[in-house]
């Protein structure tokens, strides 16, 4: 960790490609990074892990020159470099691909690949040449698509690969992937991994930020863990068993919070099957959106929705909340027929909904935590019955305490909080309305391990308090711990309903995979 000496500690064959030593950075007195070091070797996939707020983003920004570090040295192939902007970093050979792909969705794939460096002749762009070269670049990643089509017509996974291809094609030696898999389904993750393996074979070093531990063990050679801005540890994947990794990330023993199925749920004791449903849907559906389904939501009962991305899980929740309007079927609440034509109506019926897309559909970034928390309750009361400032302060303070939202400052714009804390504030927004049904779409996606466990504990507690819950989750191990009933979706159909003893990971996987050519599910 001494910054200047030659890499004598290098026990393994490949030469160090990128060496960070003693990175420190403070923001207004808060130490975001404190003496962090990291060594990336050629052809290595290096996982950068840590809870939200551990300093991963700051480290990446310091590496790519987006943020100016206070101290530390950066060497690429042994030579000191000091990029002062993302563009300079790219030029030096360090490219970054962010979770939200930074490309122009309305331009073609080829234009995106060559934006700013189009092949030209006499000053005119050579479209044909550009397309030919784009197709060749993507073929290198086994991606055979129409490069003339607009980027937005392809899935997020393809967009990511295009972003990676663009980065790598600009002669990148080091590729930083900041949570690239957060919005991909299992199959798409495999495609991305195949791309990463190809890059590895070319000797490119990859820094991989993710929240999915499975993926760390599936693809990474080495792991570096940050905690509270410091280096918590670094080891090869083989040397670091999963339990030790989690301990390293949290800095404490994690109770087996998510490991076992709650006894109540397991016994199917909520065999109050016939207990009156709070909300029931019969033959409910919308053409081209989700095929008609039946669904009953009971107090104190958790219904899980499982399936691959695009299987109709989110669409189902949007129909239930009135964010999309059904064209067939009936909805009843407390036995009375209702027309769910808008979220406002669902709100008045006692429904709450945390959407999957937290940033674009959940938070209002520039408003404060307090304003975000009281928003739904205020909408429910109507504009003419404003919550007094004191009431607002009380509500915000109560939920900040209850859900341990950090930093505990109700007047901070919510956009400045970490993903996990934004999610908690959104949960608070709905809990403040005292809903009878809470719909959660991927409540734990992109959230650190600690907040993850807290949110699952909260789901259990709400359920015990008699709330009806409808939860979408891609993490099957998680969903089986709290769901009384799991509905499996495939290709926009509700294909199976598992209850009681049948709610198991293998059971769900079998239902998801029933018709699908086998071979994608490894879990």
């Amino acid at each position, binding site marked *: 960790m001494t910054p200047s000496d030659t890499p004598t500690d290098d026990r393994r064959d490949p030469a160090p490609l990128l060496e960070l030593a003693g990175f420190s950075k403070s923001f207004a007195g808060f130490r975001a990074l404190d003496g962090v070091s990291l060594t990336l070797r050629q052809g290595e996939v290096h996982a950068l892990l840590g809870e939200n707020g551990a300093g991963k983003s700051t480290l990446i920004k310091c590496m790519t020159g987006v943020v100016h570090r206070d101290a530390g040295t950066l060497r690429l192939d042994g030579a000191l470099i000091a990029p002062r902007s993302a563009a300079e970093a790219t030029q030096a050979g360090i490219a970054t691909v962010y979770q939200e792909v930074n490309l122009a969705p309305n331009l073609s794939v080829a234009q995106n690949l060559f934006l700013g460096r189009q092949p030209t002749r006499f000053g005119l762009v050579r479209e044909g040449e550009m397309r030919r070269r784009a197709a060749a670049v993507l073929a290198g990643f086994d991606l055979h698509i129409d490069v003339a089509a607009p980027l937005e017509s392809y899935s997020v996974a393809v967009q990511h690969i295009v972003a990676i291809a663009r980065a790598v094609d600009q002669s990148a030696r080091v590729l930083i992937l900041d949570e690239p898999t957060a919005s991909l389904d299992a199959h798409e993750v495999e495609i991305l991994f195949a791309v990463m393996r190809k890059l590895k074979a070319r000797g490119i070093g990859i820094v991989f930020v993710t929240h999915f531990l499975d993926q760390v063990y599936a693809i990474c050679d080495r792991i570096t863990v940050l905690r509270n801005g410091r280096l918590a540890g670094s080891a090869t994947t083989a040397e670091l068993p999963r339990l030790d990794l989690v301990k390293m990330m949290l800095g404490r023993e994690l109770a087996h919070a998510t490991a076992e199925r709650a006894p109540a749920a397991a016994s199917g004791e909520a065999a109050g099957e016939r207990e009156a449903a709070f909300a029931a849907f019969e033959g409910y559906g919308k053409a081209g959106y989700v095929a008609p389904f039946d669904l009953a939501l009971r107090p104190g009962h958790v219904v899980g929705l499982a399936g691959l991305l695009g299987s109709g899980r989110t669409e189902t929740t949007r129909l239930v909340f009135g964010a999309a309007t059904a064209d067939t079927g009936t909805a009843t609440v407390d036995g009375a027929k209702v027309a769910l034509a808008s979220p*406002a109506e669902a709100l008045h019926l006692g429904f709450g909904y945390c959407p999957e897309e937290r940033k674009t559909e959940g938070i*209002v970034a520039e408003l404060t935590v307090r304003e975000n928390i009281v928003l739904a309750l205020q909408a429910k009361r109507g504009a003419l019955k404003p919550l007094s400032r004191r009431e607002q302060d009380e509500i915000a303070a109560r939920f900040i305490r209850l859900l341990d939202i950090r930093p505990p400052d109700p007047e901070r714009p919510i956009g400045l909080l970490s993903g996990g804390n934004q999610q908690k504030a959104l949960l608070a927004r709905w809990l403040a309305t005292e809903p009878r049904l809470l719909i959660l779409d991927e409540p734990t996606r992109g959230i650190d391990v600690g907040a993850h466990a807290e949110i699952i504990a909260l789901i259990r507690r709400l359920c015990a308090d008699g709330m009806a819950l409808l939860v979408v989750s891609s993490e099957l191990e998680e969903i089986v711990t709290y769901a009384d009933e799991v509905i499996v979706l495939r290709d926009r159909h509700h294909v199976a309903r598992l209850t009681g003893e049948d709610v198991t990971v293998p059971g769900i996987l079998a239902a998801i995979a029933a018709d699908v050519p086998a071979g994608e599910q490894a879990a």
Partner: protein
Amino acid sequence: MSLRLPRVGTSQVVALLVILAINWVVSPQFFDIRLQDGRLFGSLIDVLNRGAPVAILSLGMVLVIAMRGIDLSVGAVMAICGAIAASLADSYPLPVVLAAALGAGLACGLWNGFLVAVLGIQPIVATLILMVAGRGIAQLITEGRIVTFTSPELAFLGGGSVLGLPTPIVITLALLALTLLIVRGTALGLLIEATGGNARAAALAGVGTRLITLAVYAWCGLCAAIAGVVAAADILGADANNAGLWLELDAILAVVIGGTSLFGGRFSLVLAVVGALIIQAMNTGILLSGFPPETNLVVKAVVVLAVLLAQSPRLAGLGSNLFGRRA
């Protein structure tokens, strides 16, 4: 409720004070105010009085912009409503005249709101329709002539005074108070800021974004009508070609100078009015200075640029980097 003047509004207030100080240097009598026939006179009063129409427009415009919209039609709506008021003033009692003019403004606003909220047309295009058509409608009402009137009741709204203050100033202050009451006294302000900040999130939180959009454009139309009546009352007539011409741009400028982003979200009613006064103080200052009026536009551009630069977070960051780095 919260005006957030202290921290947020500093640059605007400073800009206004600087411009007033320059005006004072240019014309030493600038701050002289005298009472004559029960009405206050003086350059400062003039700034407030002449600034009233744009200030009134900005009270509607600021809410539209906070919703991430824009209303280009307010100048034309002023012309329509001024024409209606002037045409009716000598044959009907004042309440009828006002009801007709303000009703027309409200209808114009609702039309804009309908296009934006219900049909989902982009605000800039939706309101462009009325911007173009509105002046034509106004000319139809006046039959292409400049309509004059003699009704002293209506004239009072432009040239009269209440407790020494010219009526347009009183109307502006009253409308500011009313708007503050409606927007900040209820939760409407929060719902507008939430919708402007993230319309999808607000709708999913159960906010009736469509109704609020409609209401905000309607309010903007109403404000334009009031401004139109005041402007017509001031000149004792309606000129469909020139009434309110380009004032939509001044209103937008006032809102932007007042710190409300064209991307919607946070807004300040008081600072929008301050923005309108900044614009008028500049206009008056240039007239007083004896510069040719043609320089007005250039000076205006420079001052606007200065105010916007002072507000820019990036520039603020640069400043703290320069000065706070080694500390």
